[in-house]
C-alpha cells in the first residue's frame, strides 16, 4: 500500500504507482481509486481496511498536509499509524523540508514561552512534523533492513531511485515478508 498526502503531488504519485506496478506490485492507494470501497464504511475506514489487507506499506511524508482530513484525522497519518500498529513491513520517504523543519522547530523558542505558530500557506504545514515524529518514535528496528527503512528525498528521481533499490529485488522483499515477528528488533 502507498500512503501519501496528495496536494500538488498528483502527477508524481501516479508516476510512483506506475513504477511499482512495473516492478510487479499491485498498488493500493486511496488517491488512485485502487482500494476496495465498502459504501457502508467511511473513507477513513475503507483506507484503514486497505492497510490491513496490504503486505507492504510505503509512506511518503511531504511538507504539505493536504486535503484528506476528516475532523481531526488526516487519512495519510491514520494509514501510517495503522501500518505501524499492525507491524506491516514499511518503508518511508521523507521530504527534506520536513526533516529540516523538524530540526529547526526543535530549536525555535519564543521568549514568552508560547508555541510557535505558522501562518496558513501552500508549502509547509507543521503538522507534517507530527507524522514524521510519530514514525521515528514508533519505529521498531528491523535487523534485515538496517538504515534503509526511511529515506530523505527532494526530487522525484530520488524517490524513484530509492523505490527501485528497495523493491526491484523480489527475493529481498519476500524475505522481509516471511520474517517471523520474533525476528523483529
Amino acid at each position, binding site marked *: 500500500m502507498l500512503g501519501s498526502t496528495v496536494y500538488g503531488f*498528483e502527477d508524481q504519485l501516479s508516476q510512483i*504507482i*506506475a*513504477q511499482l506496478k*512495473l516492478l510487479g506490485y499491485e498498488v493500493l492507494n486511496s488517491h488512485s481509486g485502487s482500494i476496495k470501497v465498502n459504501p457502508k464504511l467511511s473513507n477513513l475506514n475503507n483506507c484503514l481496511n486497505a492497510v490491513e489487507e496490504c503486505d507492504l506499506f510505503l509512506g511518503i511524508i511531504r511538507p504539505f498536509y493536504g486535503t484528506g482530513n476528516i475532523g481531526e484525522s488526516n487519512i495519510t497519518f491514520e494509514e501510517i499509524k495503522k501500518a505501524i500498529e499492525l507491524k506491516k513491513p514499511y518503508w518511508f520517504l521523507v521530504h527534506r523540508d520536513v526533516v529540516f523543519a523538524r530540526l529547526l522547530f526543535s530549536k525555535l523558542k519564543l521568549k514568552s514561552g508560547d508555541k510557535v505558530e505558522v501562518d496558513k500557506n*501552500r*508549502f509547509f504545514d507543521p503538522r507534517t512534523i507530527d507524522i514524521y515524529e510519530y514514525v521515528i518514535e514508533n519505529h521498531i528496528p528491523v535487523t534485515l533492513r538496517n538504515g534503509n527503512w526511511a529515506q530523505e528525498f527532494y526530487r*522525484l*528521481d530520488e524517490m*524513484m531511485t530509492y523505490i527501485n533499490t528497495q523493491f526491484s529485488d523480489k527475493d529481498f522483499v519476500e524475505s522481509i515478508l516471511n520474517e517471523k515477528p520474533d525476528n523483529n528488533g
Partner: protein
Amino acid sequence: MKNLITMDNSFIIDNLLQQQESVRLEFKAKPEKATIAKVITSFINTQGGDLIIGINDDKSVVGVENAEKVQQSIKKLLIESITPNAPISIQIIRYKRKDVILISVWEGAKKPYQFRGKIFTRENDATKVSNQEILNYLIKERKEADFHWERRTVLGADIKDLDIEEINKTINEYKSYKKDSGFENAEDFLIQMGLIKNGTLTNACIVLFAKNPSLYIPQSRIRLTVYPSNKTEDKFINDRIFEGNLFINITAILNFIDITFGRSIVVEGVLRKEKYNYPLLAIREGLLNAMVHRDYNSVNGFLQVSIFNNRTEISNYGGLPEGITIRDLKKEHNSILRNTDIAQMCFIRKYIEMLGSGTLRMIDDCKRNGFKSPSWTDKDDITTVTFPELAISSKNDISEGVSEGVNEGVKSIVVEGESEGVNEELNILFQAVVNNPGLKAPAIAKIIDKSLSSTERYIRKLKKVGLIEYNGVSKKGGYFKTDFN
C-alpha cells in the same frame, strides 16, 4: 489566432506520408482509443512524434468517419488519462477528400509518463510497455530535466511579483483544454503546473508571468530594431526594448510588427479584403520558436528582431539542439525543446497550436501569401531565421505610425489588375484623401505633386473601386474615404 485551425494543413500529411513508420511516426487505420493512447504515451516518453488516424500501414488513405466526434472523444481520453499532463495537439485535416486526424506531441520533460498505470515507450516503430532498464533511463532523464534552467528557483521572488491577470487568463485557457481541472487561485495553479516548487518560483514562472521579469532575468528582454539599410548600424528608424513577461511581449511585438509592415486593402472587382503585408503566421511562429528555444541560461542570452531594408531577421542566443540540423527544419522533425515548461504554457494559451511542424508551416505560410521562404542559420550558438525581402514598404509611413503608438496597422491599398507603379500612385493619393478629407481634385493634385489630369484619372479609379467618394454639393464638396476603410 483561431484561423490556424481552419487552415489547409494537408501539406503536413503529405510530408509525413513520405516517411516510414518510425520511432516518431505511426499510422493507424482505425480510431482505437486505448491503442492510440498507448502510442501517444510512448511518443511523449521517447522522442515525441505524430500519429495519423485514417491511414493504413501501406499509407493508403481510409479516412475517419464522424471525424469531429472521434476527435473530441480521443482528445478527452488523452488529456484526462495520460499523466503528467503534456501538450497534445489533435487536428482534423482534410486530405485527399477524406478526414484524417493528426495527433502530435513533443517529447515530455516530466518523465515517466503513464497511461492507466502503465509506462509505454517507443522502440523503433513499436510501442512497448517499459521494462526496468528503460525505467531507469527515464528516471535519469527526469533528473536532468529537473536540473534544467527553467526549473531552477528564483531566490527573492514571490507571488507578489507576478501578473495575476496573465495567470488568470492562462487558468481559463487551461480549463477549456482540460475540462475536469479546477484551481483555487493563481498560486494553486502554479503549484499544480510545477511553476512553484517547494514554495519558490521557478525561472520559467518568472519568464511567463512576472510583472517585470528583467528584474530577475535581465536576458529575458527582447529588442526590436528597424534599420534604414541592409546592415546593423548605429542609425536606426526605430528601436524598442520589450521588458514584459512572455505574453505581454508577444502581444506588444506582434502589434509593433503589424504597425511596421501594415496591411493592404486588396480590391478585386467589387470584393475588398484586408491583407497583411507580412506573413503573419510565419512571423508569429518564428517569434514563438525563438522564445521557447532560446537559451536563457547565459546572461548574454538575447532575442533580437531586426528589420532591414531588404529582409527581416529573428535571432536568438542558443544554437539548434543537438541532433537537429538546418536541413531538418525544412521537413517534419523531432522538436527538441529547450524550455518545455514555457512551451507548455504557450500551448495552453494557444500561441502554439500544432506541435513539431512549426518550421514547415512557416515555409508554407510564406509561399501561400506570396513571400519568399524563410531560411535558417545556426552559427556561434546563435540561431537566426531570415525572411528575405520582408522590409518596410515606402508606402507605409512607419516612423510616424510607430512612434505615435498608433494601435492600428498602416493600411495600404492594392487594386488588382493595376500595375505596381499605378498602385503606388493610388496609395499616395488615397493617403492624401485620408489625411486631408474634403479636398477637390486641384488641391489633391498639389499635395501629391501630380498634374490635374493624372490626379483626376487616379481619383476615377479609386472611386470606381469604392475607396473614395465625393460628398457635398458640387461647388462646396470634396473627396472623402468611404466608410468601408
